[in-house]
């Protein structure tokens, strides 16, 4: 009963925040609402027995995405005015509200029907539970991500790489040398704080990575946490945008894909199945590479710069 109450409150909060995100006059407010929305979502994931998602949502959905949105908002504001909707004539509501309502209704109906479906025997999920042992990890999500559906994960890394490549391409090609202005604010005690936060974020990341095998966590969550540390460093001016991507960064960016694919190819070359990782050690190895790549990509995306360098 309490659970239901929590669920209800959570749901109402989520819906309200979503509405605010869309409707608030100030863009900054909208972004902030969205960040809170992400946090509430991660609670919802937890309530829905998806702790991996809760972690990921908190770190990526709310954290990194929020930071990205904020920094973008700030950069857009460079000419001094807050882009808001209210100053502009509204788009035709009579078109959009019915559209949205119809879509929502559709989801409700179909979801309702789906909820009442008889259980289908032998779904992919059932099979995943059954054959988890073959992977060598006990967390079924990690098992799916790096075992049964490792290919998806690999392609997803390619998506991340593509996003970074794309961002770099549009950001730098036509204004070489023009880098985003400093966004950091020098505050007393920041140095001390950072000297604590960054090692912690690394530690958390490493923990999440190793915990991913059996408990909630994994490369994505860990990577996001690590990236958060990087973002902090950037925000506080410990790191700054560089006009070129350094060699190390380049290696780091592709490390995940490269290690993952080469591992898969190696297995295939030695007579196994493509992408069938040979045991837990391989999973951890791959996850480490993924984590580094994810973290680096996210930080670079946040910086909207080709590379980073230590503040001189």
């Amino acid at each position: 009963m309490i659970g239901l109450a929590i669920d209800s409150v959570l749901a109402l909060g989520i819906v309200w925040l979503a509405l605010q995100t869309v409707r608030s006059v100030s863009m900054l407010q909208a972004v902030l609402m969205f960040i809170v929305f992400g946090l509430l979502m991660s609670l919802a994931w937890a309530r829905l027995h998806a702790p991996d998602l809760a972690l990921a949502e908190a770190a990526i959905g709310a954290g990194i995405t929020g930071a990205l949105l904020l920094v973008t908002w700030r950069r857009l504001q460079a000419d001094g005015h807050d882009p808001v909707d209210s100053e502009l004539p509204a788009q035709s509501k009579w078109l959009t509200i019915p559209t949205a309502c119809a879509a929502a209704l559709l989801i409700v109906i179909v979801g309702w029907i789906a909820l009442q479906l008889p259980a289908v025997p032998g779904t992919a999920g059932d099979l995943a539970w059954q054959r988890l042992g073959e992977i060598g990890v006990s967390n079924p999500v990690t098992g799916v991500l790096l075992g049964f559906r490792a290919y998806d994960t690999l392609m997803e890394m390619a998506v991340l790489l593509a996003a970074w490549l794309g961002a770099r391409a549009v950001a730098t090609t036509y204004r070489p040398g023009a880098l985003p202005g400093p966004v950091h604010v020098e505050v007393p005690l920041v140095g001390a704080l950072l000297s604590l936060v960054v090692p912690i974020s690394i530690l958390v990341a490493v923990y999440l990575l190793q915990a991913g095998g059996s408990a909630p966590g994994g490369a994505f969550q860990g990577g996001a946490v690590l990236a958060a540390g990087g973002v902090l460093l950037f925000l506080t001016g410990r790191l700054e945008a560089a006009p070129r991507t350094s060699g190390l960064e380049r290696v780091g960016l592709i490390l995940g894909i490269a290690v993952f694919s080469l591992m898969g190819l190696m297995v295939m070359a030695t007579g196994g199945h493509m992408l069938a990782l040979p045991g837990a050690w391989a999973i951890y190895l791959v996850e480490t590479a993924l984590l580094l790549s994810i973290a680096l990509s996210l930080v670079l995306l946040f910086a909207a710069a080709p590379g980073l360098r230590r503040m001189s």
Partner: protein
Amino acid sequence: MIQLALSLPLLLALACLFGLQQRLRWLLPAASLPVIALAVLQESRLELDWLLFGLTVGGDAANRPLLLLLGLAWSLAAWHALDYIGERQRSFWFFWLLTLSGISLTFLAQDAVGFYCGYAVMGLAAYGLILHNRSDDARRAGRVYLILALVGEVLIISGLFQLGARFGNFPLADLGMLLGEPDGFGLAGWCLLVGFAVKMGTLPLHIWLPLAHPVAPAPASAILSGVIVKAGLLGWLRLLPPEMFGASPPVLALILLGLTGAFYAALMGLTRSEPKAVLAWSTVSQLGLILVLFAAASVSELERALLLPVIGIWVLHHGLNKAALFLATACAPTLTRWRLLLLALPALSIAGVPLTSGSLAKGLAKEGITQASLPDWTVTVFGLSSVTTALLLWHLLTRLRQNPGDARAHPAWVILTLLALVVPWLWAAQLGLASSPTLASTWDGIWPLLLAGAIALAWQRSGWRLPQWAGLPAFTLERVSRLKAVRPLAFSQSWLPRQVQPGPALLRLERQLARVPVVGLGLLALLLGLGLILIAGT
């Protein structure tokens, strides 16, 4: 010899194209001489496989008198023309020789295609002769001639198509045999009859003749009147075998037409003052008589056999005399009294004065008509025509004296006159048809002349002048030809898309479609559509 007869004019015509006629001037009159040899020879035949669909040429009973006429009249006219026109006139000589080529082929051809081929070439080339002096009158006359000639030719070709469909390129001589059933002839016969009638100046298709002859140079008129018109006759003889019209009424109609033409033309001639116009009408008149002869010869095979030589003699006589008269008109100022007397010879001959070739021809003709089981009045009226002829020629002589030309004297017409006196007799003798004149025949020849003389005297005394009448609507045809052709139903092309018009509106629509909310609406609509369709199916 046949090769020479056919190729010499053609080669000379080609030479003219290159301006060589001055160097070859001595050959120009000689171009038509080889045909004389063909005429004199009994029979000749040559197959030209390589030409068109394969042609056969040669001389036979029907064309030999024509060939003789051609050879004599044409050579002398050419001789005259060398003086009258001069060898420098390239275009004249070109058309002259081309016409000669055409008519040679027409006369010599022994099959349908060859005949038509020559006929068409001749017909078109003669246009150049008529148009020689490029005057407005000449152009008008030329246009009328050309239109009529073309109409005639398409009629002829239509008729030939019908025959050709059945017999291919048939030998002309075999047509009667091929046709077998006389009434199997039908439309083709009428086409051919009318088609050749154009050239024969048969009423009412004669209108080009009085227009063309006065404007053409005298030598050209001479051969037009003397020779070319006879090609039509040959066409009839060749392509309209006897009995083709089955019963007698058509024959009778033809005879009536011919006689009407003979009298009408003579009367029309009396209203003209220009000597060449008078002569032209005389030709029309004479051709009417020839039509009568032809009609009589069409009654049956028998009449054809009987009258064919007569027609030949008539043609020979008329052609030579008429050519002589035309050539003489070119020498009008030089006509002294004696020369005028000499000139009276061909005129009298045409009028049928005894001892002349005219009396020979007319005598034979009347004899033939009488035997052809035609109504009696035919012969009478035929004889009466001599009166009008005589009147007309008398009118000519008086006009000639009053209409001095500007040319020099030339002996060609004199020679022709003499030939006209002698050759038909010789020809008749060769055929065994010449007979010494009897009293009856003499009287037959004399009384029309006397009657005509009386009328002429009376007329002169009375001082009455015939009204100038334009005659049958010669110029109407010309006017029709100048009418704007039927206003064509020009297909409007405005329906073709020059530029797609709704463009701007569409572009605006496209801009609207590109807006995100509109995309959303589209999505919703499609979603609903798809959903409804699918749900309807469940």
